[in-house]
């Protein structure tokens, strides 16, 4: 479940610069879509925190995804504020940073667990399998 949420979240995040680009190149309505997607992204971030926590307890998974999800959530909140305040000089680098963290999380949830016998999936990485699948 966490995997699906992170995937959708990362997708939504990656749509944002495209919408911004269309706005800058002349389609005004795209900035409104950009705002709606921003709200969606923030909701996804909240959900992601919830599932990251569940993965940790009771799931016995690592704690760092909780931290990373919280960080992304806070960054996105700030990003939305900065966007509405039209501070482009902060908005663009912050957007790149959020995209970077989401990319890392995406790699983490989709990493192939090679070297682990498929049937013994609960062996070397017992904690993630249950909750992420």
């Amino acid at each position, binding site marked *: 479940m966490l995997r699906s949420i992170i995937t959708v979240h990362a997708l939504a995040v990656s749509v944002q610069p495209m919408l911004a680009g269309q706005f800058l190149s002349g389609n005004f309505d795209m900035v409104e879509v950009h705002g709606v997607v921003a709200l969606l992204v923030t909701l996804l971030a909240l959900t992601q925190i919830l599932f990251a926590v569940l993965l940790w307890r009771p799931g016995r998974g*690592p704690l760092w995804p909780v931290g990373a999800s919280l960080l992304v959530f806070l960054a996105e909140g700030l990003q939305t504020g900065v966007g509405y305040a*039209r501070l482009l000089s902060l908005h663009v680098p912050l957007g790149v940073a959020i995209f970077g963290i989401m990319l890392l999380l995406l790699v983490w949830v989709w990493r192939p667990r090679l070297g682990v016998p498929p049937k013994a999936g609960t062996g*070397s990485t017992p904690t993630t399998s249950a909750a992420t699948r």
Partner: protein
Amino acid sequence: MTRAMSPSRRGFLGLLGAAGAVGVAGLAGCGFPRGTLGEPLTSELPLPRPFRVPLPVPRVARPVRSDGDTDYYEITQRESEVEILPGVRTAVWGYDGLFPGPTIESRSGRRTVIRHRNELPVPVAVHLHGGHTPPEHDGYPTDLVLPVGDAARSGYAGHAGRAGWSFHRGAKEYAYPLEQRAATLWYHDHRMDFTGPQMYRGLAGFHIVRDDEDDALPLPKGDKDIPLMICDRAFAADGSLRYPALDPSLRDEPGVRAAYMEGVLGDVVLVNGAPWPVLEVANTRYRFRLLNASNARHYQLALDPGPPEGASFLQVGSDGGLLPAPVEHTALRIAPAERYDVVVDFSGYPVGSEINLVNTLGSGGVGRVMRFRVARRERDEASVPGRLSEYEPLRRSQAARVREFRFRRGTVHGMKGWTINGKAFDPTRMDARPSLGDVEIWRFTTDFHHPIHLHLVNFQVLSRNGGGPRESDAGWKDTVDLEVYDEVEVITRFTGYRGRYVLHCHNLEHEDMAMMANFETV
């Protein structure tokens, strides 16, 4: 995550990392294709091959009479059929039936009076853009010249008696004192709510003011001083100009279809009314008076190939005439209604060279503008001196006050439109009252691309987003280009005439959708 990674996993991560990097680069690239700035319209006809037709130069109008201090002209605004695309007849609305209209040439300080007779099926208003003109001759949007013999038509006659509107039956004399520096001005339609479609149909022409200071400079002259009116159009299957007007008769209902409210873009670039034309030049300097007369399209002009030495464009003048000193540009961004007076030196190109004037904001057809072909060798009589002119730079400390104008998307009569300080244009509401003689700073902020134009006065660009102006902001200007979320301060001294004038966005679809405000000089 402390486990050593297996080789294949490291490879997978590397791949993902690379994909991510490409993705980020691609997305970052997406943020900056500022090529369109509006909604493109596509022609329904096959487009001509570029660089086939010679560049037309609009004819210079002759006065019908002159006296001690005034030249008198007569222009009839009428529909005519012209050949813009080879072999295709296109109906245009033109000054004397021409698109562009005839060029008016005036001497600074000598009065020019132009009687405009309206044989079009709609009301018109004529604005001399860049003119220092009394208010009753400025082409105020609701000061309309009604069609000859057709003054009682409903729709616009219904405006009669409404506050702020006035009408002239069939014709009006516009008198221009032209007490101003030599500059490339232009005249165009300014009818309330319908400027976009009426200019698009052809109502625009050059008005060049000359003076002794400019004449005395050794800049290229005569047939090497050429005005270039750049605009984009789209064509319908029947050859007519394609425009998404809600009311194609342009009589009653203003506006364009909602998708086009950002601005209408064509797919054919015309220079002086010809599609992607060619100009044969000698291997010498030329002075080109560049005007972007497009409704909404911005261009970034460059020469391809650029000259082997020196910059492509040596700018000598802006909207309001000569700069203090020439400014070099390898590329020149030009927003609707802006003018750049540039010298191009073809001496570095061998005879036979073909040099394209390109638009690096566009791709395909709209990425091309015109072509120069170096056809002959000639001795160059012209040069560009290091000092061109002198004028008083206005300083922040001189300003009596600062006014704010916020240019934003907003609600106009219950529909989506464009506003200034949250308000739609209203001819009866005065938004600023500067005193004659006062210096003021006007601060503009935007939510989108808006080229902002002031009537009556020229200004100097004081700042951009807290920093200095751009190189291309130099000189006296009447139109300043603002991009998304820009803040620009301009400074000016209000002089000349008392009365009501407008400031507005010169993206014509924005202007027609209410992005205009009044000021009254007192």
